[in-house]
């Protein structure tokens, strides 16, 4: 236990240092507005990827409707600040809670399904959420909700990202998290061991949805606008890709996937017509070469770099 705390402390110090470096570079104008935008986008994507990893990677429930919850967070957050004129902090809380509540309502019936059926159901629900928003005139309908103040900055997004990462990491190591892992490994066995599988599946789904809502609030308060077109199933695929690319069930994998794909996207923005083609070829080739993702279900650690050192190092290389 002590060792874990010590590790947490080290990680926290490291992230504060990383934050100060980034903030310093932005202050000193070494990082221009374009990369500042992308760093904030990375933070948002990391929140999305780690929260989806909680559902898909740890609990093994195949959800591909994450963009729907992102949309709910983005829109409720914007309603709080723009329509009601209330502070951003409240928007974050309400956005998170409402996405979580919707996740709970959706999760309760749909999580009875499994595998591909759950995937398609969540995909459909994500689209239904988007189409409903599209038809509500109060939030601007098809033209989107405009005039949102830019409140999200590096401090907010980085801080919340660290919070979400630590929350999910600690959740995974808690009794609840272990129950989720047991469900992923074998649902029937978990059930026989007395784990209330429905409860834990819904719990993981609700938490994942809630954090997607947080990311949504950050998203809409950075880009001035919440537009239905930003929350299509393509966006859900994007998030799923980050998680699978990094390695399903690996926290560091999800983070790496989010960082890597956001960087690839940003770098390729100079070649708009080639961007998606290079992106998709990268995706196919990576999946063909490493179907278990970059890290498999392992966590990135210094051990991995010791070639042939110990069984841990060996496991991550095999698989193909």
């Amino acid at each position, binding site marked *: 236990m002590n060792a874990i705390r010590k590790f947490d402390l080290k990680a926290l110090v490291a992230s504060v240092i990383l934050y100060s470096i980034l903030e310093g570079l932005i202050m000193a104008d070494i990082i221009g507005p374009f990369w500042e935008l992308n760093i904030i986008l990375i933070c948002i994507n990391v929140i999305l990827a780690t929260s989806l990893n909680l559902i898909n990677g740890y609990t093994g429930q195949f959800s591909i409707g994450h963009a729907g919850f992102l949309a709910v967070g983005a829109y409720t957050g914007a309603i709080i600040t723009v329509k009601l004129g209330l502070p951003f902090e409240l928007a974050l809380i309400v956005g998170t809670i409402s996405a979580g509540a919707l996740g709970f309502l959706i999760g309760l019936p*749909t999580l009875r399904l499994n595998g591909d059926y759950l995937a398609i159901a969540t995909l459909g*629900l994500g689209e239904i959420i988007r189409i409903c928003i599209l038809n509500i005139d109060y939030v601007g309908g098809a033209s989107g909700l405009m005039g949102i103040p830019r409140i999200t900055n590096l401090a907010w997004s980085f801080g919340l990202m660290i919070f979400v990462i630590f929350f999910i990491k600690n959740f995974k190591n808690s009794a609840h998290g272990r129950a989720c892992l047991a469900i992923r490994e074998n649902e029937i066995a978990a059930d026989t061991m007395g784990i209330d599988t429905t409860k834990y599946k819904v719990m993981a789904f609700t938490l994942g949805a809630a954090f997607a809502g947080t990311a949504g609030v950050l998203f809409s308060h950075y880009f001035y606008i919440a537009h239905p077109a930003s929350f299509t*199933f393509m966006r859900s695929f994007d998030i799923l890709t980050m998680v699978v690319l990094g390695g399903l069930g690996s926290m560091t994998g999800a983070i790496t996937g989010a960082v890597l794909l956001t960087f690839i996207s940003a770098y390729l923005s100079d070649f708009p017509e080639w961007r*998606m083609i290079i992106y998709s*070829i990268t995706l196919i080739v990576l*999946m063909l070469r490493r*179907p278990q993702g970059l890290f498999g279900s392992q966590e990135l650690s210094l051990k991995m770099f010791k070639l042939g050192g110990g069984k841990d190092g060996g496991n991550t290389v095999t698989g193909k």
Partner: protein
Amino acid sequence: MDMMSFLEQFAQQMVNGISLGSIYALIALGYTMIYGIIKLINFAHGDIYMLGAYFGFIATSYLGLSFVPAIIFAMACAAIAGIIIERVAYRPMRNAPRIAILITAIGVSFLLEYGMILIASPQPRTFPAVFDAEIYHLGPVVVNNQQIVILISALILMTVLTYIVNSTKAGKAMRAVSFDADAARLMGINIDRVISMTFALGSALAAAGGVLVGVYYNSIDPLMGMLPGIKAFVAAVLGGIGIIPGAMLGGLILGVVEALVSGFLSSTFRDAAAFGILILILLYRPSGILGKNVREKV
């Protein structure tokens, strides 16, 4: 709205729905066959349908073919494309985790969409009119000859498919592989060849759907396959995934419901209706209308 005009409107929407639904059914057939045989939700299937529409476009406007040769040309080209995609992107992943294959399918889908944008520009193209538009009045209901052509072509293709699957040796092999791949392999069936053939058949049907949509709406664009692709999957699930008559039925029901929703409610809710049906069917009858309930075994 009084009763009479309601009925007229209803009948009209039924006609529109059936013609749209038979196109969904054609795409759904490919989905259901591919899912039945390798348990893969082939997200790229909607883009094969788009490819088919473009092949049909090439055949009619550059090669100057008439409708029937054009649709056969498009089906043949799409079948080859389907075989290539399976060989390059899916076959090396036969033993990979399912989600990795799914991501590959998404990648292939992006590649086809944006590759087509690069080659053919993102602008929609006008599909040449292969028939003179004729409109028939059946009482108050208006039917145009494109709708009739769609229905007849879809019926012919489905009959041919049913014949292939039920009465030929190749079809028997396909059914065997989808029933139990390992046992089929032990019986000396070349599984790889059967899977290739399934992709070829499925892609050809999707391409026929693409050409028919081009004829129906006169407009095709590189992203046209995204939504119909997903909806056709809904249709396949609705009828019972892996079941061929189920995909036809699911497609027709989906088309009719969409037409009714856009006729009586609002066309913006059309897509929500499709997904709403999906959720309902998944919650109450996950094996689909024609599917059998399979008990979970430990």
